[in-house]
């Protein structure tokens, strides 16, 4: 959904002359349309992510709305303190765009896997996190955050197709529900909605009813939606291409605990740093229990009488 996301930024820039685009020397074949349309508002700052965020902060203080684009790890982790002391501290509308969340960069290895970006961003009060599930949701999210006067971290994955049943629904601080099964809640972070809905289909064939809750924004987080959902579903399974700590697995645990719910929680995600193991995203998802088949298996085992 990168080209569609870049197209969305371009559309914002057409109607809002505060919008500028900075890149840390990435975005080949993706950012050219913006660069050609608005050469005075496009800056390749070079391979210098800290400076990119610092410059974006200076631009935003003067009333601009700069987007700062890089691969998710480089956009979030390298300039993290600049983000904290810059747009987060000053409450300025800097848009950080991290492309390729989780294991998306497959063969590129662990330096390119953003496995803690959502977690570290979630720690910063006032930094909104948006993880679109598909291109339609990405467009809706850009629209929904266009006038937000605080920083946003966009984690833009590689999902190019639409998620069936989602239809581009996006509302800040809300979870989008797909299905209404009451045996298990499959709580998916952004593009993992794909695996979650496919797992729901598999479970349905085995007479297990699932509701998929797609979480595409945090800070504000869909706390009330999850609490309501889990009030009468006894098994919650979180699915995220992220470490199991710090992301939506942790968030769901907080909701269950703080609302006094008695749902069991299983967190699917990456549990250890994937050292020395690369491969296609499909392979990696399978290895980390994030394929539709592995998710369905996890649910079925959990629902067996001896599943605990």
């Amino acid at each position, binding site marked *: 959904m990168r080209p569609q996301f870049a197209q969305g930024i371009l559309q914002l820039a057409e109607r809002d002359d505060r919008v*500028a685009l900075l890149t840390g020397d990435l975005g080949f074949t993706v950012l050219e349309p913006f660069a050609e349309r608005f050469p*005075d*508002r496009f*800056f390749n*700052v*070079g391979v*210098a992510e*800290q*400076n990119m*965020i*610092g*410059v*974006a*902060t*200076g*631009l*935003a*203080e*003067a*009333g*601009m709305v700069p987007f700062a684009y890089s691969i998710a790890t480089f956009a979030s982790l390298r300039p993290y*303190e*600049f983000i904290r*002391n*810059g747009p987060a*501290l*000053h409450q300025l509308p800097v848009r950080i765009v991290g492309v390729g969340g989780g294991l998306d960069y497959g063969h590129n290895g662990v330096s390119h896997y953003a496995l803690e970006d959502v977690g570290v961003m979630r720690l910063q009060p006032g930094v909104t996190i948006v993880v679109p599930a598909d291109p339609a949701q990405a467009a809706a999210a850009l629209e929904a955050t266009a006038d937000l006067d605080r920083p946003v971290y966009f984690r833009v994955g590689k999902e190019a197709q639409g998620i069936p049943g989602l239809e581009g629904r996006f509302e800040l601080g809300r979870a989008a529900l797909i299905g209404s099964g009451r045996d298990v809640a499959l709580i998916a972070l952004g593009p993992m909605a794909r695996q979650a809905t496919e797992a729901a289909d598999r479970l349905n064939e085995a007479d297990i009813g699932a509701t998929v809750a797609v979480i595409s924004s945090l800070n504000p987080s869909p706390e009330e939606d999850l609490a309501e959902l889990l009030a009468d579903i006894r098994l919650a399974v979180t699915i995220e291409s992220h470490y199991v700590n710090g992301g939506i697995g942790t968030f769901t645990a907080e909701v269950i605990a703080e609302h006094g719910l008695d749902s069991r929680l299983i967190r699917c995600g990456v549990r250890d740093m994937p050292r020395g193991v690369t491969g296609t995203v499909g392979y990696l998802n399978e290895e980390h229990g994030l394929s539709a088949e592995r998710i369905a298996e996890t649910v079925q085992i959990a629902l067996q009488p001896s599943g605990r």
Partner: protein
Amino acid sequence: MGTSAASIGAAIRRTVIDQSRRAHVGHIGSALSVSDLLAVLFGTTMNGTPDDPDRDRFVLSKGHAALALYAALHEAGHLSAEDLDTYCADGSPLGCHPEHPVPGIDFSTGSLGQGLSLAAGAALAARMQRSKRRSFAVLSDAELNEGSIWEAVMFAAHHKLSNLVAIVDVNGQQALGYTRDVIDLHPLADRFGAFGWDVHEVDGHDTETLERTIAGLDVEQGPPHVLLANTTFGYGVDFMESKIEWHYWPLDEHQYASAVEQLEAAR
């Protein structure tokens, strides 16, 4: 008393000594070394009031000299004596590092190595918005150890941010020793020059030369500017000058009296 930058610098030094004594906190040496730089910037150089969107922008990248900045804002009429007396008090916005909710402080700082990027962004914004406003940043020399500074140095030179003026407080001191012994910066002028900046080596306590140098900069075209301002850590108080312990120590009663006597004698 006149309002020359020199006299403002002297007033800033007196406030630094009075407030650090009252609040019983350190960072005195570093606040004294930038006193004349801030006197020139806030007293006679920068345009616009804090609520003017087209004001010149300022970043105290070496945030630990915040007390000198508060004193400069006070001299410029932006911070009352009552507010100044809350320095480091419980609940006060005036801490040991500057916070942007204070009127007149454009950017919060405190973590070294970040301010030049902010100032470069502010300079770029001015250009994009077709404003003649300038962007000033005061950096410490030790801060140049941070790699991110050089990211900003390269960026500003590449984009010819002529409205960006960096002033490096070259006091030769850093937290655990002299800069020449920790990470030697020599030859600093050559380094900035090699990166494409317009470099000026100046006496950081000669306010008239500072004013003249800044006024003579071409801020409409050409490269960004850096003033390498040679300063004295602990300037004006003989037992503090070039003594690293005054990065840390507060003043006792006897030291305070001696410092005040020296500063007043020099006015």
